[in-house]
Every structure is written in C-alpha cells, then in structure tokens.
C-alpha cells in the first residue's frame, strides 16, 4: 500500500472516523511517532464500553516508510480486537517481514484466541490485508460473531 503524504493523513483520520461511526470511542485521537530513519508509526485505538460491563478494544497500528516524491509505503501492521466481555482475541499481523518468513515461512500471520491467553496455536496463516478499513470490517465481524471465532478452521504455522 503506497500513499502520498496528504492521502496518508486522510487515510489515518478515516480509520478513526470509521471506528467512530461503529460506536467506538477514539482514545486520545490518532497518534503518529516518527524517528530519525524517517519511519512513522501510526496508532488508532477504539474503545467500546459494553452494557454488561467490560470493554472491547480495536487497536490499529501501522508502520510506514518514506519513499521518493513524498510518498509512503505501509511496511508493517498489527490490527487487533480484544473482546474482554467474551474473553477472546482476533488479530491480523504483518511485522518483522524477514524474521516472520524465516521462522514461520509466511510474511503475514493471524492470531485467534477463543479464550484470551490460551491460544491453540501461536500463529495462523493469514493473507495480507489491503488496508486498515478491511481490518476494521473483519474485526467488527469477529466481535459480532455469536458463536466461536472459528480458530479451529485456521491453518496453524507453528
């Protein structure tokens, strides 16, 4: 995924807006950290207080690297749903590309925990998500799922 500087800002603000329209409170607004290498790490956290107590979080983190001509490439991402009322977690990750390929034989992986902290598998085979909007759709769909998350049907990489 490659965006211009202006489009990248609009994209990140769009992620916050998408979480807001789904009823999530955005904690502190989107945050961007940048370092001397030129990389920028964006973080957008949406929190949903649930009527029965507890809260659910959707955490969107992305790292972008600069390209020539004021363009940016998304290099890494972690998109997480932490559903505390139901004690389960779903996540889509692309981080440490080279290490993941060497250790897991796959650049992208997913997490799926029917019970938080008790995964049947540490890393599941995943597919690269085109953007954070699709991640929001998938994570909200997981939150809506009344039955199991379906972790058992995923392919374990460990």
């Amino acid at each position, binding site marked *: 995924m490659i965006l211009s500087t202006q489009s990248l800002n609009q994209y990140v603000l769009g992620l916050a807006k998408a979480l807001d329209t789904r009823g999530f409170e955005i904690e502190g607004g989107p945050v961007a950290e940048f370092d001397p290498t030129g990389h920028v790490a964006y973080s957008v956290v949406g929190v949903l207080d649930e*009527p029965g107590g507890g809260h659910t979080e959707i955490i969107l*983190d992305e*790292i972008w690297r600069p390209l020539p001509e004021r363009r940016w490439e998304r290099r890494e991402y972690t998109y997480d749903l932490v559903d505390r009322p139901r004690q389960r977690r779903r996540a889509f990750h692309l981080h440490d590309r080279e290490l993941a390929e060497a250790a897991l034989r796959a650049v992208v992986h997913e997490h799926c925990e029917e019970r938080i902290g008790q995964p049947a598998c540490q890393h599941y085979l995943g597919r690269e998500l085109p953007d954070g909007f699709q991640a929001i759709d998938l994570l909200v769909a997981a939150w809506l799922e009344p039955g199991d998350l379906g972790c058992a049907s995923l392919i374990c990489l460990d």
Partner: protein
Amino acid sequence: MAKRFYSPHDVAVLLGVSPTTVMSRIHDGALPAVRVSERIYRIPVPAFERFVSTRPAPSFEIEYRRVGRVKKLGEPIATPADDLIEA
C-alpha cells in the same frame, strides 16, 4: 450477554422506516453493517446507536511525536537463532 447486532428488519422497526430504506443507508455507507452472506447483514448495536445519536462527528487530529526509534509492532517471534543456541 447484551445483544450485539440488529438485522435490517430490526432497524426498520426501530426507526419506523422500510427495510428498503435501511438497506439504502447501508449501501450508501451511512449505516455501518457487516455482510454475513449474500443476503444477510448485521448492524452492530453501537453503530446503530451512533447513527441515531445527536452527538456531532468528532474532529480528529493526528498527534505527531518525535521519538528515538519507532516502536516494534506485535509480539516477538521465536527466531531461528534459538535453534543455533540449542544446537
């Protein structure tokens, strides 16, 4: 566990409009919904509540911070170097 989603029919009843109107709002993006199958949609209850709320859309701004090094994402992956150490 509190109900987490409505059907388009539920929303139509709650709003006093037709299901067709609800589907129009889903398709134009005003009412977020999850498509479960070709003909089945689920509207998250918080999204519906946000849709009917009078609270104005917040104006988000990105807070930029300079750091020594951007954070590492995700949990550590066991490295092949672990095999070297064990060998």
